């Protein structure tokens, strides 16, 4: 009985009460709602920081296994990852995250790595587009044509030769594209509002994983 109360009712009450304050702080100008909502925002950040500890434990579990089993293919990478984690952690503690050593590590290793992955997007996009943009059917043809228009719109020389095409593309981007995007946003907004209400009121308990 106690387990059911702990696992089912207490989370529902917490989510319901806190959700009520958060949602109604948006349209209502009542101090207790706005203050509670701001405070809850800080709690979320705090809880997320605690969760990071769980993530680090998981990294040690996942990468500790290959090292302990001496898995030939994986252990050097796992060891490098855990060693990097420990080094960055220690430097962060000793030098603080704004210190020169930490900044150097970030700029030279982490920042460079992130930029490399960002740059890879260009190649991936190109390979994906060359695969996808084939006029196999009517929809594919329309998509190909629309893409051609948008690409040509970005190149100034086409604007000099064919100003009408440029105007048409601008209209296409400003009217149908914006219309569809707003439609998407509205659908998602309505869905989120209703789903949030059903979850907060306890009418939908699917987020709790299982029914008792």
């Amino acid at each position, binding site marked *: 009985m106690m387990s059911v109360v702990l696992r089912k009712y207490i989370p529902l009450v917490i989510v319901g009460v806190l959700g009520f304050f958060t949602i109604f702080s948006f349209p209502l100008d009542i101090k207790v709602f706005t203050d509670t909502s701001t405070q809850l925002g800080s709690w979320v950040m705090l809880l997320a920081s605690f969760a990071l500890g769980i993530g680090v434990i998981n990294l040690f579990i996942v990468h500790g296994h290959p090292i302990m089993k001496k898995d030939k293919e994986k252990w050097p990478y796992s060891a490098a990852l855990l060693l990097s984690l420990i080094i960055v952690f220690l430097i962060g503690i000793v030098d603080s995250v704004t210190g020169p050593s930490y900044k150097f590590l970030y700029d030279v290793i982490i920042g460079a790595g992130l930029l490399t*992955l*960002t740059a890879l997007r260009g190649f991936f996009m190109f390979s*994906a587009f060359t695969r996808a943009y084939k006029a196999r059917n009517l929809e594919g043809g329309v998509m190909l044509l629309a893409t051609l228009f948008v690409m040509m719109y970005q190149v100034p020389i086409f604007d000099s030769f064919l100003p009408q095409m440029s105007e048409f593309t601008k209209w296409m981007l400003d009217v149908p594209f914006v219309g569809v995007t707003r439609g998407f946003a509205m659908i998602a907004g309505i869905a989120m*509002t209703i789903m949030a209400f059903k979850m*907060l009121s306890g009418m*939908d308990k699917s987020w709790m994983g299982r029914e008792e």
Partner: protein
Amino acid sequence: MFIFVDGRLTLFVLMACMYGAAFFIGQWAKRGKTWYLRKMPAIDALVEGIGRATELGRPVHFSAGVDRAGPGDPDRAQAYPILKFVAENCAQRDCRLITTVGKADVYAICDQIVKEAAVTSGNPDWYKAEDVQFLGEDQFVYAAGVMGLLPQEKVATNYIFGYHRGSLINLLEAGKMNDCFQIGGMARQSGEMAFLAICCDYWMVLEEMIAAGAYISKDPGQLSTVATQDYVKFALLALMITGALLITANIDFIKRLVLL
């Protein structure tokens, strides 16, 4: 206006109406009303992907996104029932499932879902703690982890759900390069959605994602959520058309009402 933030009175009334509709339609569902959900090939293909991986003797990868476990987040809320469904099917077939997450708070939730799926499927030994992996908080760090994992573990089926940002194309193209059968879905409107259409064998966006949980569980409560969304959409569409007609006739009543 009194206790309301300026310009949000109508919003408050609309929210109250939506909540009222959700409550009454929920009660209607409890009394036995059911709604028809059209066939969703992407959800039906989830089992096909698991079957493919089982036949090849290779694992399935499930990405639960790179966003925090925010309340009312449709991507996350729908990724969980899909993960549960995939995990149960994998456990029944004894097919390895590697679940990766990009946020530590989501890791704890996904780990619990996979663990419970192993128990409910009658195969508790199938669960392995190291198969639910937290790959890093940054989206590109997460992407690098997945890009390394797909060839290393010889993944056969790649499921990409939850919210993804710019790194989505990296995950999908890595899957394509490794000949993975791919299914992806995103509930929020994003510029990255186009990549799902290009790189996935089956994909679902927006409403399909939001209806996914109901489609899988066939639970009347969740079906009523989808039905409420449709009724509210029809009502708002009627309001928009009326507003457009009235404003054309130079009557700005609805415009002023919305701005209250």
